């Protein structure tokens, strides 16, 4: 009898990663006045959000919650990584950008700028502006066809200017350099001139944890990275958080 009950319990579906993440996060908030007690809850929430991010539908709000959980679990590099990963999908999202800026505040190292057109204008913005301009343009065309020349000229002019503006912005976005694969430095580490410890350091000081870098190449357990100020060097793979990398997961 007991075995049957245990078997039945085992077959029942457990809480989804999102539900358990929410529960842990709220438990952490309850204990926020005691960091030692709260952080394990935030850590559990962050791991559950990671699972939800990898397995379930992704959204900007999920990314923000994931980053917040990592931040409150005292793992700022992972919070930065979560936000950067989301900004690859929704580069124009102002909330993601603002939270990334908050996480970056204590990283004393050059960080990539978020001032490109793709960080300001979303495809939806272009679509809405284009729709309005196209409607005005279409009405103008119709008026022109049925003989209202003066009003048609005004409508066509306004619509065409709107569409021209949208086109210029779209071309600017297309011309922006493509996004590199990125990584976030997990802990203070020495950047070297080659992919072994026998090579001398590239910089006089260590790269601080939380620094965002572009990944140029990988070889023999080392990653060649490029900092925001253009300096290139090698760091051990275990010292950076890479997309899809599980070896450096805490």
């Amino acid at each position: 009898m007991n075995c049957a009950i245990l078997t039945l319990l085992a077959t029942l579906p457990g809480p989804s990663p999102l539900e358990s993440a929410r529960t842990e996060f709220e438990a952490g908030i309850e204990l926020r006045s005691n960091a030692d007690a709260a952080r394990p809850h935030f850590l559990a929430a962050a791991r559950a959000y990671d699972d939800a991010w990898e397995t379930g539908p992704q959204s900007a709000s999920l990314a923000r919650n994931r980053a917040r959980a990592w931040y409150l679990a005292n793992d700022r590099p992972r919070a930065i990584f979560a936000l950067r990963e989301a900004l690859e999908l929704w580069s124009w999202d102002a909330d993601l950008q603002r939270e990334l800026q908050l996480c970056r505040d204590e990283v004393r190292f050059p960080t990539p700028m978020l001032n490109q057109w793709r960080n300001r204008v979303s495809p939806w913005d272009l679509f809405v502006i284009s729709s309005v301009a196209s409607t005005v343009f279409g009405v103008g065309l119709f008026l022109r066809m049925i003989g209202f020349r003066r009003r048609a000229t005004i409508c066509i002019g306004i619509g065409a200017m709107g569409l021209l503006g949208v086109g210029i912005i779209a071309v600017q976005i297309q011309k922006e350099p493509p996004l590199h694969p990125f990584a976030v430095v997990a802990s203070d580490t020495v950047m070297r001139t080659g992919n072994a410890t026998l090579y001398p350091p590239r910089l006089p000081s260590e790269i601080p944890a939380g620094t965002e870098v572009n990944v140029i190449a990988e070889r023999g357990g080392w990653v060649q990275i490029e900092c925001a100020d253009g300096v290139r060097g090698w760091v051990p793979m275990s010292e950076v958080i890479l997309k899809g990398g599980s070896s450096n997961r805490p």
Partner: protein
Amino acid sequence: MSAIGSKLAFALVAVASATSSVYAQPTVKDIPPIERNAEDFYHAIAGNRPIAGRWEAEPSRVPLGSDIALSLIVEHSENPTELLRPDLRQFPAFTERFQILESDVPPESNGSAVRFTFLLRPRTIGEIEIPSLKYRYYRPAFPLGKRMQTTYARPIAVSVTPPPPKPAVPIVAPESFFSLAPETSTPRTVPQNLWLIPPVLAVLAAIVAHVVFRRFYPDAARRMAWLRNRAAREALRALHTKSLDETQVFAVVHSYWVNRWQLPPEARTQREIAVSLPPGIAESAARFTEQCDAARFGEASDNSMSLANVAMDLIERWEAAA
């Protein structure tokens, strides 16, 4: 007398020099190398009394995580300045129980006693024994072969209590991070060229609308009639909905004549209107102009409301007759 005195003085000097040569302070250099390099020998040389070593721990009761100042006191050494400091890191009995920290306290010498201080951090909670230390020393007064003697610093116990609970420290983070972001459904990806669809659709819609329009108004004459009817509709709407004075009523009707019946805009007098409008409506239009003039210049009692009603009635009749 002086000879006896000088002999005595000589004898005293001789005794003194002999005594100083017998009691000259021994040094490590005097010890043969094979004994000098013996294990657990820290260069202590004993005189008449044997060397004694002992531990002292301060404090003897500490919470976990705190440090203990452990002193090794070596007594009765003839060469206190030459004594070596034992390296406790070499003894597993110490390193298993304590973390040996760097200590910058120099040896303290007090006569023949020397104190070496070590800084230890216990690894576990409970009664922990500081192990005994084997301490070999050299005793030159003994016969050859028995000069290396051994003593021990006897073990003592220290008590390590659980660490006191840490004061609760709140998490420091931006306040907005202490709440969950509301769940929103964000599309996974958005095509970058989505904006190209509306212009194409707009052009197509304009063409379709034009085709439909031409279907309902297949020729230009009917198109113009539609436009003219629109002028009548606008005039009726203006007369019906707005409270207009006499001048405005006339302006609305005049605008209707201009748009609907191609009256030259400059034709404003009764005579000009009668001449310019088609014969079917010229007479009634001239009469209406006369009424308006009378109302405007006080020659009749028609107010603006009745004028507006007259105007609406006339427009409907003209449209019906057209």
